[in-house]
């Protein structure tokens, strides 16, 4: 085709399309795509408390590689940063946090002091919450509350902490983590809460995250928090 004269845009558009590198791209493998979609919807449970019974149906057989893809996607999105993760409408009403407010902020972590005289109430993610891959700083950075605190009491179904350092979000001086018996025991065991101990705790939508994101303030977890919340 001559390039000497383009009277019509259509002609130029057609010429440009001759340079389209995706001109012969064949469609995606439907099975692989279905797995990717399922993993996106399921893996997201890791950073959101389970709030729907039917989410459990998303746990059909899945190979470890697929999990890794999903985990990478979750981690990658945390690194994107340009997208504040606004709360979806279906995030569930079981995760109310009086201090956290409706929308998590992942863009501008504020590292500072707890709110004097205030109490933050947290709960624990449901039994259906699944863990994907190893915790990474990029994933941790997505949580809307993260703090360091010392356990002052464990009574009944409540762990009370005194927050000493806030990495992300708004956290009161006193933090009470309450949960039904089952999840509560799981949390005590996984996070290894003991009175007098100092812990790094992160929460999403008012629910304490486990999966390696909360635990005693030392070693690798301390490094993870420092990396996730550099400010």
């Amino acid at each position, binding site marked *: 085709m001559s*390039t*000497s004269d*383009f009277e019509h*845009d259509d002609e*130029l*558009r057609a*010429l*440009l*399309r*001759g*340079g*389209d*590198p*995706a*001109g*012969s*791209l*064949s*469609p*995606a*493998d439907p099975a*692989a*795509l279905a797995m*990717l*979609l399922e993993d*996106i*919807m399921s893996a*997201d449970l890791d950073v959101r408390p389970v709030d729907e019974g039917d989410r459990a149906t998303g746990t059909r057989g899945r190979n470890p*590689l697929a999990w*890794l*893809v*999903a*985990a*990478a*996607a*979750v*981690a*990658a*999105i945390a*690194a*994107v*940063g*340009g*997208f504040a*993760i*606004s709360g*979806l*409408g*279906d995030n569930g009403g079981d995760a109310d946090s009086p201090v956290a407010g409706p929308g998590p902020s992942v863009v501008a972590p504020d590292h500072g002091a707890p709110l004097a005289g205030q109490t933050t109430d947290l709960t624990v993610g449901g039994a259906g919450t699944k863990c994907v891959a190893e915790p*990474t700083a*990029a994933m941790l950075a997505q949580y809307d509350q993260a703090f360091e605190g010392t356990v002052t009491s464990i009574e009944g179904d409540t762990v009370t902490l005194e927050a000493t350092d806030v990495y992300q979000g708004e956290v009161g001086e006193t933090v009470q983590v309450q949960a039904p018996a089952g999840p509560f025991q799981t949390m005590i065991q996984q996070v290894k809460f003991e009175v007098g101990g100092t812990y790094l705790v992160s929460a999403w939508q008012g629910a304490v995250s486990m999966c390696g994101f909360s635990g005693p303030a030392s070693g690798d977890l301390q490094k993870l928090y420092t990396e996730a919340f550099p400010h």
Partner: protein
Amino acid sequence: MAADSPDDDPRERFERLAAEVVEPVRRFLARRTDPATADDVLAETLLVCWRRLDQVPEPALPWVYGVARNCLANIQRGDRRQVRLAAKITAVDPPQEAVHEPDPPDPRIEAALAALRPEEADLLRLWAWEQLGPGEIAEVLGITPNAVSIRLHRARGKFVEQLRKIDDGAGHEGVREGREP
């Protein structure tokens, strides 16, 4: 993407959205990056769609292109450590299209686009390859349709000029070669 009803299952809505946008977004990415990065960015883009499902407008595609474009830009200037995990998986289990050799695109087009400013080349790609109108391009780029029209007009002119230079250059080379003893 507007919900058909307030009770509409988000999973179904997401799957419908994905069915609508996955192939166009795969082509969008194949035009702009390597296959491994394209896979990563597709997964990221879909994750953003899932998380922001209630904010996806109708029609969804220009908005989703904008998401993919931002994800790609962030990956290209940021740390690739995490996403390389997925890239390795691509190598283990290559997607079907990886085994096909695409028809080679006209190299003059690539050369002429490369000679333009990146923003101008981007406009022309969105116009000719994604086949978007000025209003849709405006949504992808976050600028006004009027600005798109003006810049597109200018970019088309420069592209034609570059193409002419390339053709002329090829002609001159031929003449010179002919004159060699």
